[in-house]
């Protein structure tokens, strides 16, 4: 076993550890949200989905921004590790957006009476989902590693710049065509208990993202090291 694959395995192990930590944190968040956070006066219990949805959408968005930035850095520095990082982060982001898009409606149906709503968060996450999917599909369709890295970087950068435009367009679209707002955004002065839970949740999701990326990165390194072993 080469030193490269040893280092890769260590990364995977560490990544899994971070994920475990994140999952524990997630459990803590649920306990906190359901047991120790005040119920919102007007929306009631269903409002607590807020603590799951906002951070999940945030993770997907963070992931995509990282993909874009890693892409830009790759085009500048041409370091293949940046490409692997982008690939890993994109996959993690895809997972997060899928989780968010599936649990949202599952939770939403009994509570809101509808499977889907075009609220800003869901819409943005749906679009990120398609961008992640497209990113992955393009990578899968390109054989040459240098080409794959360059092309993915360009897609990542363009996608990252697209996000604010879509967000703006959708927002304007919605303000002109108000739809039943099932989830009010946080009120101007969020009570400390709610803010605390929200921040913890955001932190946990970020840790989870970090863990996923690390694990996937390690697996990627292992695969590439294995490939080199076979060839050398």
């Amino acid at each position, binding site marked *: 076993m080469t030193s490269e694959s040893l280092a890769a395995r260590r990364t995977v192990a560490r990544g899994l550890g971070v994920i475990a930590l994140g999952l524990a944190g997630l459990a803590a968040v649920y306990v906190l949200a359901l047991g120790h956070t005040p119920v919102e006066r007007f929306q009631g219990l269903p409002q607590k989905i807020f603590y799951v949805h906002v951070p999940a959408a945030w993770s997907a968005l963070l992931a995509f921004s990282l993909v874009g930035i890693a892409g830009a850095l790759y085009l500048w520095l041409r370091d293949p590790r940046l490409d692997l990082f982008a690939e890993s982060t994109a996959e993690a982001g895809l997972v997060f957006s899928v989780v968010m898009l599936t649990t949202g409606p599952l939770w939403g149906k009994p509570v809101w009476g509808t499977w889907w709503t075009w609220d800003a968060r869901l819409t943005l996450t749906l679009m990120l989902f398609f961008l992640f999917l497209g990113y992955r599909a393009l990578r899968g369709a390109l054989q040459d590693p240098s080409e794959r890295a360059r092309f993915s970087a360009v897609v990542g*950068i363009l996608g990252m710049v697209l996000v604010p435009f879509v967000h703006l367009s959708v927002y304007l679209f919605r303000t002109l065509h108000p739809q039943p707002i099932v989830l009010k955004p946080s009120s101007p002065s969020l009570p400390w208990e709610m803010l605390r839970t929200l921040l913890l949740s955001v932190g946990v999701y970020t840790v989870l993202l970090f863990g996923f990326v690390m694990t996937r990165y390690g697996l990627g390194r292992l695969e590439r090291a294995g490939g080199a072993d076979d060839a050398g």
Partner: protein
Amino acid sequence: MGDFLRVAIAVAAKDLRVERRSKTALVSAMAFAALVLMIFNFARDAAALSREMLAPSALWITFAFSGVIALNRSFALEREHGALDGLLLAPVSRGALFFGKYLANLTFVLTVEAVALPLFVLFFGVDLSGALGGIVVTAILATAGFVAVGTVFAAMTVRTRFAELMLPLLVLPFLLPPVIGGVQITARLLAGRPMSEIAGWLRILALYDLVFVTLCLLLFPSLMDE
């Protein structure tokens, strides 16, 4: 700067000349646009949804999809006999090559739209008086942006096996702002709404164009640089 434009125009002229010879792509795209418009007419509950209500959406979805279809040929023609290498060998900047491709694609897509618009008026019984100028400007503005992105993606997907599928998959998210803006503006123009309601959307379209044309111009060389 002079060289940049000279090369871009030469490339664009070459693309358009090739297209004029074979004609297949242009005619297919126009036929596609006509078919989409036709389908829209029937793909509605006539009792609940009038043609007027559906009109702006129908127009812009037709523009968007026909545009994407038309973009595929852009780099497909460079695959034959390694023509792309012939372009890259020349002592010209990659940016100029991109701009030439972009201009050709823009001309191409705008031509398809120019054919689709009268058909739209015909099929949907729309009264364009007063709105025609605004719709034309909006169409140019919206198209200018997404053709830039489409040109970049066409350059990428032509190297993949399922280019005809990959290109729409990648480009469609980028069509959201131009299409949303296009529909909003068209609906308001047809309803005779005041300019103040439209200005905001026009600004978004213009910003989109500026940002993405510049970005695509800057990123294209990295695609070509092995």
